[in-house]
């Protein structure tokens, strides 16, 4: 019989066994035993954030940029409720996280104890799964399950709620080698009959289109996808979550699609005859109004790990449930054998049509402007970082410009809250990215409204010397809100003006960082170069941009994909 360990010791040992190097957290009464154990070792390094929302976003940025499970640790009650936004953000984008929360002692549960909330109840709708550990003897197996569930199948956040007495009680420790759960067995291999059907459709296509989403990134399938698309010679588009899944500088890439997608991507989506959807879910921001989408007949092949994503908003002809990597490998094998059968002349005509759409130059903007155009800042950011940076973003116009103008050639470089659209995500996510990629250049593209939602993390950045580059596209407006008000609410800018802004330069300086304010278009590139030269400093760049600029193209809510407002 091995010696007995406390629940807190077991928790930390489990994290070590899982190979966790960083956890992001904030202490409190219910997790004091766990913090005590963290203190006594140095394998698992704890990063002290300034707000629990940021702990979860940081763990999330860590996971997105590394394909490892992100881990956050929060206390009971307000610690958990603060974390909920982060958990919901990760859930919507299927990010593998394990969140460990403290809970009041088991004997106090249900008695409205100090800092008690029903954590399992509050988080139930925004986690892949959650557990309340009632006995220390179940703790190790539960943590093992949590990591397993978070990282397999369609990934997602899993929460483990540990009452204080459970972290104090002792039991023999044995970390299970394997997990087997009769009720959870995610499929990986796609159905071979379905894959054969897909091959037939693909070979017969005259106007094919490949549409890929976050699933390609999550499944680490970018290289496979790229090989497949190149072999076929088909056009490829990525969703907001899928950017980097196919190299943006490649000529077969037609840009992002959807509400702020390119003209060519949306037109090709609408008019293709065979659509291959890979790890994407046809959501409302992507295909607009499904009825309008049905106006054109096309055959749809849909590859996804999650059966419930298939035929949810759009009926598909060939569903293939499986891991994207596995299914793409199978497809590649079969297609290589039959690729001479591709209709090359039809494909050429299709590309001629796509090039006509491309010539519309839907992302053009006034490059001669004497006021800084936000698009130009992103283009310069791309140039100065040679396309190699990790870019996180907040939510709003700046997010869309970053997605449109930074050309992501690699997966896991574009880190944004696509599903939940959480303002405040960018800065803490960038911290997580920097911990996962200590040598990488990490920039956070943000807006003056979003950045203020987690601005306190500038303090965390100082404590851990995170040399992030913050690109604040300061238009003095909640720009995306203002744009909708301009287009759909008669220019009535209700509460979207950002009054009483802080002096961001001084703010950054008071946190111990470098601040820069850039007001002239001619200074943009120089400022970025200077900032990225400061390799060991966080630089907050406050770009004073055109207040009136809008994001184009735009598919208005409820409209069809080909009903874009163009510049």
């Amino acid at each position, binding site marked *: 019989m091995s010696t007995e360990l406390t629940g807190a010791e077991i928790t930390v040992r489990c994290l070590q066994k899982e190979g966790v190097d960083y956890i992001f957290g904030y202490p409190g009464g219910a997790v004091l035993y766990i913090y005590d154990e963290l203190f006594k070792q140095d394998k698992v390094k704890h990063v002290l954030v300034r707000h629990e929302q940021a702990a979860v976003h940081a763990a999330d940025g860590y996971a997105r940029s590394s394909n490892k499970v992100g881990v956050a640790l929060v206390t009971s009650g307000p610690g958990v409720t603060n974390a909920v936004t982060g958990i919901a953000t990760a859930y919507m984008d299927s990010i593998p996280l394990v969140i460990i929360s403290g809970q009041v002692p088991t004997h106090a549960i249900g008695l409205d104890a100090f800092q008690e909330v029903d954590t*399992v109840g509050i988080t*139930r709708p925004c986690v*892949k*799964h959650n557990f*309340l550990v009632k006995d220390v003897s179940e703790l190790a197996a539960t943590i093992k399950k949590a990591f397993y*569930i978070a990282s397999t199948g369609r990934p997602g956040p899993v929460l483990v709620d540990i009452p204080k007495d459970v972290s104090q009680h002792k039991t023999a420790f044995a970390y299970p080698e394997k997990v087997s759960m009769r*009720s959870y067995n995610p499929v990986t291999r796609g159905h071979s009959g379905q894959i054969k059907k897909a091959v037939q459709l693909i070979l017969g296509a005259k106007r094919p289109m490949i549409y890929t989403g976050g699933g390609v990134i999550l499944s680490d399938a970018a290289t496979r996808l790229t090989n497949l698309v190149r072999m076929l010679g088909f056009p490829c588009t990525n969703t907001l979550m899928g950017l980097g899944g196919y190299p943006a500088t490649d000529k077969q890439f037609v840009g992002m699609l959807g509400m702020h997608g390119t003209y060519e991507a949306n037109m090709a989506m609408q008019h293709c005859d065979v659509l291959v959807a890979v790890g994407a879910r046809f959501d409302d921001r992507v295909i607009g109004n499904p009825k309008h989408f049905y106006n054109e007949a096309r055959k749809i092949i849909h590859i996804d790990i*999650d059966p*419930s994503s298939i035929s*949810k908003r759009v009926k598909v002809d060939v569903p293939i449930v499986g891991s994207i990597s596995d299914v793409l490998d199978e497809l590649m094998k079969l297609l290589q054998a039959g690729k001479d059968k591709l209709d090359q002349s039809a494909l050429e005509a299709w590309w001629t049509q796509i090039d006509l759409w491309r010539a519309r130059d839907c992302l053009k903007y006034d490059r001669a402007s004497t006021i800084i155009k936000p698009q130009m800042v992103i283009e310069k950011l791309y140039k100065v970082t040679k396309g190699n940076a990790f870019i996180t973003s907040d939510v709003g116009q700046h997010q869309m410009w970053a997605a449109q103008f930074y050309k992501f050639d690699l997966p896991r470089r574009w880190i944004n809250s696509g599903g939940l659209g959480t303002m405040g995500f960018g800065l803490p996510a960038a911290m997580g990215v920097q911990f996962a990629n200590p040598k990488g250049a990490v920039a956070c593209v943000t807006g003056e409204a979003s950045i203020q939602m987690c601005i306190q993390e500038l303090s965390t950045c100082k404590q851990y010397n995170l040399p992030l580059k913050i690109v604040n596209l300061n238009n003095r407006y909640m720009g995306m809100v203002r744009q909708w008000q301009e287009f759909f609410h008669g220019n009535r800018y209700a509460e979207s003006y950002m009054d009483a802004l802080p002096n961001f330069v001084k703010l950054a300086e008071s946190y111990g960082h470098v601040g820069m304010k850039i007001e002239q278009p001619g200074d943009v590139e120089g400022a970025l170069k200077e900032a990225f030269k400061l390799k060991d400093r966080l630089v907050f760049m406050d770009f004073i941009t055109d207040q009136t600029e809008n994001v184009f193209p735009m598919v208005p809510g409820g409209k069809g994909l080909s009903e874009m407002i163009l510049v």
Partner: protein
Amino acid sequence: MENEAGALSRVAGLFSSRGYNIESLTVAATEDPTLSRMTLVTVGSDDVVEQITKQLNKLIEVVKVVDLSDGVHIERELMLIKVRAVGNDREEIKRMADIFRGRIIDVTDKSYTIELTGTGSKLDAFIEAMERSTILETVRTGASGIGRGERILKI
């Protein structure tokens, strides 16, 4: 599904958060105490029922989901109904209970409590057949279902 605390609320939460409706829901442990079996009655188009099935399957504690209405199946519900039974009504109500193969399981000088099993529509019919004003109380379990013949839902 796994016979664990919280499994039921996950199912109920799924229905409310995705806007599906629950007509009835029954759940209890099976002969294997680690498993419980739920019969859930819902209505929706084929597409909606397909989504419901997929979403239920995604719940970690759900072991297996079968749409019983895909094939022939048996459905039973239990109702306990307390009715006012005085004077001439006593005979009449007793006869009615017999016709529906109900059993009177509790008697006072003013009331009968009748136990009745059957499909939901049979129980509805019994309620219809009773004089409204005589009904004091009803309690129904909701349907439990099982496939006919060799059709088995087992892990």
